[in-house]
């Protein structure tokens, strides 16, 4: 499988979320590169970074949804939890010496594209409406939350 390329249909229209999704795509591509090199340490490193970043992204997205009053924030959050558990199982299998990188790569690719195109699309209109109604306050909120979760 080749590198994932960002296409316009992956944009949600919420810049901060699109930036994070793009970053996850980069990580998925790093995983691909490490696999191609057959570099087990490199693969382990990318898996850890990828999971860490994805969990921060989930937290950010959850706060954004809650803050905007999206009525299905809780079920969306539950979906994140279930997915995080699934990925953590891969991490454990990798640490136990199993080569799960191909399986994980294909799961992440499918999940990211499906999640962006379908599941995230559901909250976008609520979040955008909220952003427009409180533009200045919202910008401050985004940068504070971003800084707290991603340590920037």
């Amino acid at each position, binding site marked *: 499988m080749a590198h994932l390329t960002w296409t316009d249909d992956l944009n949600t229209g919420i810049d901060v979320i699109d930036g994070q999704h793009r970053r996850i795509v980069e990580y998925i591509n790093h995983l691909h590169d490490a696999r191609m090199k057959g570099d087990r340490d490199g693969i382990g490193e990318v898996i850890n970074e990828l999971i860490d970043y994805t969990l921060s992204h989930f937290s950010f997205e959850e706060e954004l949804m809650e803050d905007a009053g999206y009525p299905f924030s*809780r*079920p*969306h959050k539950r979906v994140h*939890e*279930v997915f995080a558990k699934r990925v953590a199982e891969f991490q454990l299998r990798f640490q136990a010496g199993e080569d799960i990188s191909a399986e994980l790569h294909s*799961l992440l690719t499918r999940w990211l594209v499906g999640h962006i195109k379908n599941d995230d699309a559901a909250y976008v209109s609520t979040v955008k409406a909220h952003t427009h109604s409180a533009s200045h306050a919202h910008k401050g909120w985004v940068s504070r939350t971003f800084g707290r979760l991603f340590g920037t």
Partner: protein
Amino acid sequence: MSPMQWSPMFETGVAEIDNQHRRLVGYVNELQSTRANDDPALVKDVLEAAIDYTLYHFAFEECLLESSDYKLTDAHKKVHEKFAADLFAMKAQLERGEIGPRQLNEILTKWLFDHIRHADTAAMRKPIR
């Protein structure tokens, strides 16, 4: 078997859940057209995507049920759990050649039809909040 058609009788009254069910119907139909092309690798891809999405849908639906006053939430979750285990078992059986895409398609069509028509329409009947 003809493609599964969406019908108003599948509607639960909760738009998000109906949309997710529509997408599941889409996967079952995609599996059927992939099977018609006789490409085992594609069948596997579609099945994997269908499993991912089913797990997503179950998690979403269970969370809604828990926050409602639906009495059979635990039983409904058990049914989900059993079906999720069945899905992984079917994937393994498919990979070992013990079941064919045709059987898989029939099982999934039947399960989805029964589940949406009976279990979910009953579960979602009460206002969700």
